């Protein structure tokens, strides 16, 4: 049970993020929901590589040779970079929408149709 806690945390994070994307009206909250889903998936990827009693997968002065898997860490790094670009783009679009219409409420126009 103790070893399953990160997976339960992943499911909770994805559920909170999906609630934010689907049910909130403020545009910034929708963007933050996407960010939280991204964090949940990143946590899931790192958790997949855990091996019992392993250390960080670095060869510089390693205490022992049994390490956790390094491949999911590379995948997670790429995913973090992509999420930063996506969130920056969405926040810029939200700023421009505010300048046009004066409000960032998504119900006023046909934004979620």
């Amino acid at each position, binding site marked *: 049970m103790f070893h399953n806690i990160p997976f339960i945390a992943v499911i909770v994070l994805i559920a909170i993020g999906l609630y934010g*994307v689907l049910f909130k009206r403020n545009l910034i909250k929708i963007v933050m929901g996407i960010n939280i889903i*991204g964090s949940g998936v990143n946590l*899931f990827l790192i958790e*997949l590589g855990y091996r019992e009693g392993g250390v960080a997968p670095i060869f510089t002065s390693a205490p022992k040779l049994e390490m956790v898997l390094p491949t999911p860490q590379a995948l997670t790094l790429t*995913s973090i970079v992509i999420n930063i*670009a996506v969130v920056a783009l*969405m926040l810029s679009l939200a700023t*421009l*929408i505010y300048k046009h219409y004066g409000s960032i409420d998504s119900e006023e126009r046909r934004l979620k149709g």
Partner: protein
Amino acid sequence: MTLIEHAPILLIAIPLLAAFLTPIVGRVNSLLRNFEMIIALVSTEFLTILLSYDVIRNGIRTYTLGAKIPGLTSPAGFPVRIILEVDAMNAFISLIASSITLIVAIYCLNFMKEQRILDKFYTLLLLLLTGMLGLTLTGDFFNLFVFLEILSVSSAALIAFYVQRGEALEAAFKYMVISSVGALMVLFAIGLLYGQYDLLNMAAIADSIQGSFLDKVALTLLISAFLLKAGSVPVHMWKPDAYGEAPAPVSVLLLTSALISLYVLFRIFTIFAINPVLLGWILAILGILSIFLGVSMALIQNNLQRLIAYSGIAEIGYIILGVGSGLVEFPSPTGFGFTAISGGLFHILNDTLDLGLLFLIAGAIFYLTGKRDLNIGGLAHSQPTLAVFFLIGMGAVSGLPPFNGFASKLMIYESVYYLNPLLAIIGILGSILMLAIFVKVFSAIFLGIPYDRELRKIPGSMLAVMGILALSIIFIGLFPNLVLESIITPATKALINPKNYIEAIL
């Protein structure tokens, strides 16, 4: 060490290099930037033709990034490093992608003259081509995710190109939200598959997959995410806004990227054939719903580009219907299954040409009159060539005999009739309704009293591009067997034989 050995990676690297060069060259001189972009696109097209000729003649070609020789995929019995794999199906799709981008870029040279920040537009266009070609040629799941995100971000930035219009910004925001939820679903599914098998290569996972519950969850997530990117019925909400608000040449490229997402979908479920009968039926039902919803919503539209977008949803429904009904006969489709899959793949080619021509005509109308809706009358008197092109496009989309839509739709109707006659009848009704829609559009825009304002001339390059598309439509319509035997049938054979795909790597 020849050019053909490095061709798969050069197809991705040359547009990427050109995309990074464009801002620097654009500061110096804008004519030089146009020239450099056209050179990059022409060389990509040349390499694509060379590569597809070689692959259809000689078989599958693989490329490993960073190894000692390009073909060394599995030095120790399992695949290491990023591997690109090109077979006949990949070559067909990459031909479509690079040809359409070259044609659209020539169109854009004159269409977008009045905008100020054209450097960024051409950079994003080249990045979009990189994403499309990378998504086509990859053999690795994580590469798929990276190129999918490159595609999504470039498309969203291009949709919001007219920043003075509020609706374009909203459409880009909606597209980006839905697209990134889909991409995160893909990443979750990749994580599930990696956690079970410790492999990221598509062919290696296909070799060692068992049908456990987590595998089915991962495949469901993957298929739903790519259906979301393609725009079929349950998740089609972003399509009308995105295609309606983008500049017209960008809509053509968005359509091509939706068709490439469909290709990835077909590749995934022909390699991992876990439950083909159920999957085939679900896809056929979704195809029918897409056809029905696309044509019925298109009847009531006022904005020309949104109308063409809804008919695009219907055309994607035809493709999914064709390939889905062919999938029911997996793992060895003969008879009607083979015809269905061939018809679906042929329809990908025809759909790009037809809807591309219609979008470019809509762009030309916007260039002439500045209006996006259907309240324009009598353009046929001053622009007879546009009217002829529109008639050709209309006939091709609805499947009339001398045009190419007829050939592929006939193959789809014949084979779907063997599956279930009701589906074929709904398909034929959809085509008839689509003809009705476009007749209404034609009479609203082109017939009637002559247009009262003085119009400028359409530049020669735009007319030439539309002429090339129209000529290809007529040529493929008159000689469909030529295209079928040389390109489509090898592609179908490559798609339904996953063993060749897997053995080339392991």
